[in-house]
Structures are given as C-alpha cells and as structure tokens.
C-alpha cells in the first residue's frame, strides 16, 4: 500500500524489538466479541488511477456552477476566487499542520488567525472576533447561547426571515438547555413585529440582513428597542460580501455579529466545509463568554512579538463541563483561505466586488421584473432577491435545470408548505449579461 512505509522485514524486526511473536499479540486486550476472522466486507485496495476513475465518474454526474448560467444562493454563493488562494492553502505548512498548540513552531497559523480575527472585526464593525466556527449557522446558534449566558436570561427571539437552517441549528443547540427560542412569522416585511416580541426576559433578538429573501434591514430601531429592555442584538448574515457595500452590523447597534464567510476564499463545496464568522463588542463580559479559539498577541523570552492561543479557560479542554462551548477543531484552513482572499481584495477590491454584485443583481431584477406575471418582491437588496412567479417555483426550477439554467432556490424548499410561488435568485460578479439574457429567455419559455 503506497501510504505505508514498512516492509515485511521492518515489521518483523519491530515485533522482535517489542518482544512479541506476531501483531495479534499487540491486540490481546480486544475481547473475543470484537475479534474478526479475516477482512471486513468492502472492496480491496486500489491504485491512484482506479480511484481517480471512480471518483471522477461520480463527479461527472453533477452539474457544476461554472458550467451553466447560475443564480443559486440562499446561504451559499458562487464567487470567483483568485488562483493564489488555492495555491497558498495547499502549502504543506498550512495544510498539514494542526491546531497551534506549540506556538513557537506555529507562528504561521497564529499570525494568519490574528489577521483573520482583525479582518472579521473590521468587516462587521465589531471590536473582536474569534478564530472561526464551523459555519454561519452554528456561529448563530452559539451566539444565542452566549447571549443567554451574558444576560442570564433564557428567552431568545429570532426573526422569521433569518435563514431557516440558522434557526433550526439554533433550536437544536438550545433544545435541551433552559433557553427558549421564539421565531416570528417569516416574510419580507420590516422588523416591527420583532420589536413587540422583546420584553424584560429577552436575552437576545436575532436578525439577519440581507435576510433569507435578500431584503436589507436597518437594525438601528431594533437595537434601540432591544437595548432599552436589556437584551442583546445578534446580527446574522449569509453573504459576507454585502459588508463591502452595506452598513456594518456594529454601526447599527448589534452586540454580536455572526455569519457565513464562504463567499470569500472558500467556494461552494456542496455545502461544506465553510467558515463561521463570530464577532462581538469589546466588553469583558462578552469576551469571557465567547465560544471557540482566540489568537492573541504576546512576546517571547526575548521580548519580541509573537502570537498564541489565549483565554483558553473558556474552552472545553480546560473548563470541561463548564466550557462556553464544546467546539474544538474549527474551520482553520477555510479561515486561512478567507484571509488570503480578503488580503488580495483589500478594501478597494472588496468594495468594487460588492458594487459589481449589486449592479448585476439590479440588472437581473430589471430583466425578471419585465416578464409578465413575474414580480420582484424586494424594495431593497444586495445581490439576492425574491421573485413571485405565476407558477410553482419548484416546478420552474426543475424545468429550467432541464434546459441548463440553475435558476435559484424555491423558497418552499426552506419553508415547507409556504411561499410556493416564490423563487430566491442571486447574482454575483460571475454572471454575465449573456447569462441574464439566457435566464430571461428560458424563464419566459417555461412560464
């Protein structure tokens, strides 16, 4: 087997050195119930070529985003990623290192994490960020639990237009805790009903902008209302590129910002791995209750700057049953990809990318709005919006897939039994005028 260095002679010499006769003597502690005769019933080893053929056969059954006009979003977005990113994250020193438990030989990872934390804080308008969570949905769930710990209140209110997967992940994490989650009715409307749901028991209110329908929200009124009742505001986002163009959660009063970083550097990957972003205000109560790893600055024995993992007394390996979260491994390499792509973009590139996204979405909205019976439902959006169709959106998406257009996500796939004529459509810098024209024409033909 090509990954196993020992020859049979090596194995024999090593068994001799140990002082046992056979490998079975090293498995003596396995009870009879666990002993197998022979091999488990699975295929035998194969060479690179054979494996490559089998994997490629499965890959070729899928329609990749780059091969067709592509408008699918709803929590994951197709963006162009500079080639430098994938090259750098495949550097052995990044790819095959582990969590930087020995900081003196992990400064590469630690410094990039420190850069990542700073970038996330800047983007969200927050003071500090952690070294990543699994994804946006689990970051959101952890934020709800953190808000309950900080406020010592047990009621969370989530807006109905937060991505349903984020709501479900939060409910799962809270399911057997003392935290109760209330979710308001979904829809494209404003956040007024949410304000009414806040009372003196509310730990936090969770809002998303752009929301799952792509609609933008001003969070200032809700922040004021929440803070007046002593509740925290958690601002979620699924499209981090939006922060290059729309107001930062921190500037609109949010206390914790959580979201998905997949758009920058990571790619679609059929839903994972992604990178959860988690940032909050610089408040000692907050930082001590944060989940996940934190890289911090310090000095070495010669007084020179270096970075280490820090404040680990919050974490499971130290605090065990009293930890702020059970998270251990996070999204390390994806956070590196995020940081490299963000460094390539810089402020200038990010803003430009965001503007192009918005302009492309505006062109698409104009085109679709011009089709009889099709109505754009958003009055404000970034790169994604909802349209009402004269037919069932699921059927329309399937019909369009047959003619080679991936048109978006039927809202009913996220809200079963609701919004059956609503389609969520995203446009990014990857979409050309020609893509939009093909979509326009194809949609007319299936309606």
């Amino acid at each position: 087997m090509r990954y196993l260095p020992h020859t049979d002679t090596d194995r024999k010499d090593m068994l001799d050195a140990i002082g046992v006769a056979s490998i079975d003597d090293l498995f003596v502690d396995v009870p009879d119930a666990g002993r197998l005769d022979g091999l488990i019933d699975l295929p035998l080893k194969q060479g690179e070529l054979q494996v490559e053929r089998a994997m490629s056969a499965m890959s070729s059954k899928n329609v990749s985003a780059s091969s067709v006009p592509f408008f699918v979003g709803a929590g994951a977005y197709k963006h162009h990623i500079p080639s430098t990113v994938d090259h750098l994250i495949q550097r052995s020193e990044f790819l095959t290192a582990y969590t930087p438990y020995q900081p003196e030989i992990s400064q590469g990872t630690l410094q990039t994490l420190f850069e990542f934390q700073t970038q996330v804080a800047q983007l969200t308008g927050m003071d500090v960020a952690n070294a990543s969570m699994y994804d946006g949905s689990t970051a959101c769930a952890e934020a709800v639990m953190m808000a309950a710990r900080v406020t010592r209140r047990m009621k969370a209110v989530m807006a109905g237009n937060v991505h349903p997967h984020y709501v479900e992940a939060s409910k799962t994490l809270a399911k057997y805790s003392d935290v109760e989650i209330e979710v308001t009715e979904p829809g494209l409307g404003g956040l007024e009903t949410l304000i009414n749901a806040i009372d003196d028991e509310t730990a936090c209110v969770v809002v998303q902008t752009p929301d799952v329908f792509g609609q933008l929200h001003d969070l200032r009124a809700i922040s004021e209302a929440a803070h007046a009742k002593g509740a925290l505001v958690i601002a979620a986002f699924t499209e981090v590129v939006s922060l290059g163009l729309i107001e930062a959660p921190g500037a609109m009063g949010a206390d914790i910002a959580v979201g998905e970083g997949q758009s920058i550097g990571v790619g679609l990957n059929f839903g994972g791995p992604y990178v959860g972003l988690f940032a909050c205000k610089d408040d000692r109560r907050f930082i001590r209750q944060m989940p996940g790893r934190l890289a911090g600055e310090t000095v070495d024995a010669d007084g020179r700057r270096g970075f280490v993992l820090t404040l680990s007394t919050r974490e499971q390996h130290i605090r065990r049953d009293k930890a702020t979260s059970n998270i251990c491994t996070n999204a390390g390499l994806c956070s590196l990809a995020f940081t490299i792509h963000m460094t390539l973009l810089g402020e200038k590139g990010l803003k430009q990318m965001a503007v192009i996204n918005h302009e492309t979405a505006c062109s698409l909205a104009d085109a679709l709005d011009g089709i009889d019976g099709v109505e754009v439902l958003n009055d404000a959006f970034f790169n994604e919006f909802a349209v009402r169709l004269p037919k069932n959106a699921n059927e329309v998406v399937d019909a369009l897939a047959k003619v080679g257009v991936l048109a978006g996500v039927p809202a009913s796939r996220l809200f079963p039994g609701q919004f059956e004529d609503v389609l969520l459509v995203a446009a990014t810098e990857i979409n050309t005028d020609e893509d939009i024209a093909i979509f326009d024409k194809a949609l007319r033909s299936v309606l």
Partner: protein
Amino acid sequence: MPMNTQGRPTRMADNIATGGYAETTSGSKGLEQAEPLIYERGSAEQTGVDLPEPKCTPNRLGGLARQSELGLPGLSEPETMRHYVRLSRKNYAIDLGLYPLGSCTMKHNPRLNEKMARLPGFADVHPMQPASTVQGAYQVIGELAHWLMTLTGMPGVAMSPKAGAHGEFCGMMAIRAKLDADGQTHRRRVLVPESAHGTNPATAVQCGFTVDEIPADDTGRVDMEAFKAKLGDDVAGIMLTNPNTCGLFERDIREIADLIHEAGGYFYCDGANFNAIVGRVRPGDLGVDAMHINLHKTFSTPHGGGGPGSGPTVLSEALAPHAPVPYVVQNGNDWELVEHEADAAGEPFGRMAAFHGQMGMFTRALTYMMSHGSDGLKQVAEDAVLNANYIQARLKHVMTPAFDGVCMHEALFDDRFLEGTGVTTLDFAKAMIDEGYHPMTMYFPLVVHGAMLIEPTETESKSGLDRFIDVLEALSLAAKAGEKERFQAAPVHAPTKRLDETRAARQPVLRWTPSTDDELQAAE
C-alpha cells in the same frame, strides 16, 4: 539602545553587548524571513485583483449603504504570495516531519484526496441545486455512509456533523431524544471517565445532562467497581473513548456495554482513536450505540491548522431513527435528500447546521478509503499499533511508560523519569522543538502526571522512528545529566523563543489596532 520600528537593534554591537541571541538588522535570519502583519504592510488603496469598473447605476440599497469605515489593507498578488509563503515557513507540519501529537492522528495526507476534492463536480456545486443536477454528490454521501457503517458494524450514520465535537453532540442528542421518546426523562446523569477529552463533558452538558466522573484503575482503564457503583436508574449513558486516551484498549468494554444497557442507559463511544482498530475491530460488535468518526484523523483529511474537520456519527438500531436531518436515501437508481423533519421516516432530533455536512471532507475520506480498501485499512491499524509499541519498547529504559503492558496506537509516558532533574514535561517538549520535532501531546490525559502522549501513526517509517527514538533517548539522558538550563531555555532554534502565554491571557490583545503601530513609533 537604538531600535528600529520592529523593535530590533539597529547596530550589531548592541546585541553583542547585551549577550543576547545573535540579532540581525533585518530581523530575518537566512531563509527565515521576518514578516509583519498585513496591517503594517498593505494599504486601503492597494489590491491584488483586477475587477471591471462598476457601471455606477442607481443602487437599490434602501439607504443602507455603508458609512462606517472598513479599514482593510490590500496587497498586490506578488506581495500576498510572499507574505503567506513567509508565514507558512514558521509552521511545523506533517509534511516536514514526524508530528506525534497524541489523540490527533497526524498521518500523511495523500494529495490524491486534494485532487479529487477539487473536481468541479464536487468543489463547484451548490448544496441547494435541484436533485437531478447533484446525483453524484448524493452518491458520495451515500457511498461514504456505507463504508463507515460497514467498518463500524453499525446500522445507521448521521453524516452532517462538522467535526468530532459536533459528532459527539449528534450522538448525545440522539440518546437524549431516545430517552425522552421512551419516557425516560429522569435519566440525566452521564458517566464520563476522568481521562476523557474535554469535549465529552462539555457535550454532555450541552445536551442537558449532568456529568459524573469515573476514576481510572491502576492499569489506566475504567475502574469497574467504581463504574458499577455509579449505575442507577437516573443514568442516561456513558461516554467512553476506546482505545482510551491512555492509548489502551478497554478490556472490559463488552461488560461495560452490557451493564450500561441493563441499567437502561446508552453507550456513546468517542471515536477519536478509531485509527488503532479500523478494519480490525467493529465497534458495533462491542455494544456501542453511537460513535463519531473524525474523518480528519482516521481517514486522513488534512488538519489545516485546526480544521475543517468532519464527524459523521454511526448509530445503533435504537438511536438511528433520531438521526438529524438532512440525510440521503437511495431510491432505485436515484438518490434523494430528506431535508425536513416532517419528511423523515423516524423522529429526527433536529438539524445540526446549514446544508448537508462537510462534502469537501467526504470526497477526501472516500478517496482515502477506496485507496486502502478493507485490506489496507486493517494494515493501517496494525502498523499504527506496531509503531506506538515500538516507541514504547525502545524508550522504556530511559523514559517511564505510564502503564505496563502493550499499548494501542499511542505510547503514554509520565514524568517520573524527570524527577529531580528540574526539567518539566513542558521543558522536555520545548527541547524537542530544538531537535526538529513537533512535541507530543503534553499534560493530557489528566490522570497521568506530566503526561506525554505519543502517537506516531502508521505513515512513519522504521528508520524515521529510529531517529525520533534516538533523539528522545538523548534528551532523557541530557535531562538526567543535569542539563536543565538547556531545557528551560528551549526552544532557541524555533522562529520565536518561548512565548509568554500568561501575559497573552492577562492583557488580551485579540486584534491589530492602529495604536499598536503608534506605540512602536513612540518607542522609536
């Protein structure tokens, strides 16, 4: 002393005079380049991408255009490349050398896995595409599920957990859901050995359980008498790592499973150490009800500096109906995705995260499994165990194994051999850095004093192990010979000297701010 903006002496004479570590004017040392933060290097005007000029059409942002500052520095492409390549060189990595971090299974990461994960049909597909356009992606999930269930001898598997700890959460949630469905709402106590990973107690609490610790016996295994004494009708189950964190197989595992089942509880097995037994022992035969599998350990997906991981969780007949959504099912030739609790055949406890799990890790792990096959995987376990025992056998005359007898895939030493030397486990570990090795896991498990947990994995050659053994032997002898200063000063050959972790925690600096720069200027 005159210092430059990086706080380094500007004249060589200064650092010679202070008797310090030989400094250079640049801060770099030969191939090792000093590298500031991007915030000290880039600017808001610089960018490494060329994008078309925006058309400046009217916006539809509803008056919510960003007013607050971004403050993100950019770098051109060559500068970006250099920045991150320079930083990468300050990392130790599996591809550089033996990485004996116990409990982490730092094995070779085959590049075929990377290539397969990047096929456009896997890397460039969206999780919400219509089912007809992602049949191959559902198939990968289904095939990997089949391998995992067959290797563990378990009837069900939840594929969506995003890492080991997330898999623990999945398994314990399934146990909680099953207990509640059976009206066993008084069962809230979970037994966890003292030697367990911290994630175990943290997870149990996250599922609304309380944790009751079981001590280890003097062979490093569950103290059976203490375990039996803790059984009762409020017990929800046990979380047990096997092989355990001392690197030992729990000989009484079948009896533990039977007793916990008789008591009405369930058996969660932490599968972090599955590498020791893959292809040779099926946890399902030992009475396990749930076990997560770290694809980034046993199945070689890269650790990436701390993730991403992937933690599919196999489930017994009793727990499988409570598996979370989503999951794939095969219907004739077609694959389908069950996304909503209402559409599920069983009673899912919920959804763990957005979308369907760590697809990028699934493709890598499946590639690895197909490469090894059932014969190769069995050899993996055998060579991993052989390597650990070889290290233990060859070092036991100079270091002190924590327990007698053979070990599994990890060799655990305590610090008795350092007694009276003035050298601690930490010092010993840092001295290994100077010898060009990543240290073993230190001070874990907690049940062993000054623990040093060495997991070589199966991908180390005999000659590589011999070199490593020679180094540890030499260090042990040096410690015993009274060379404690060398250990206490270590590392001196790493990119930094020993870092002050206490200061980092007492005065947390968790991000760069412009004032950091100002302070440096002022110091100058």
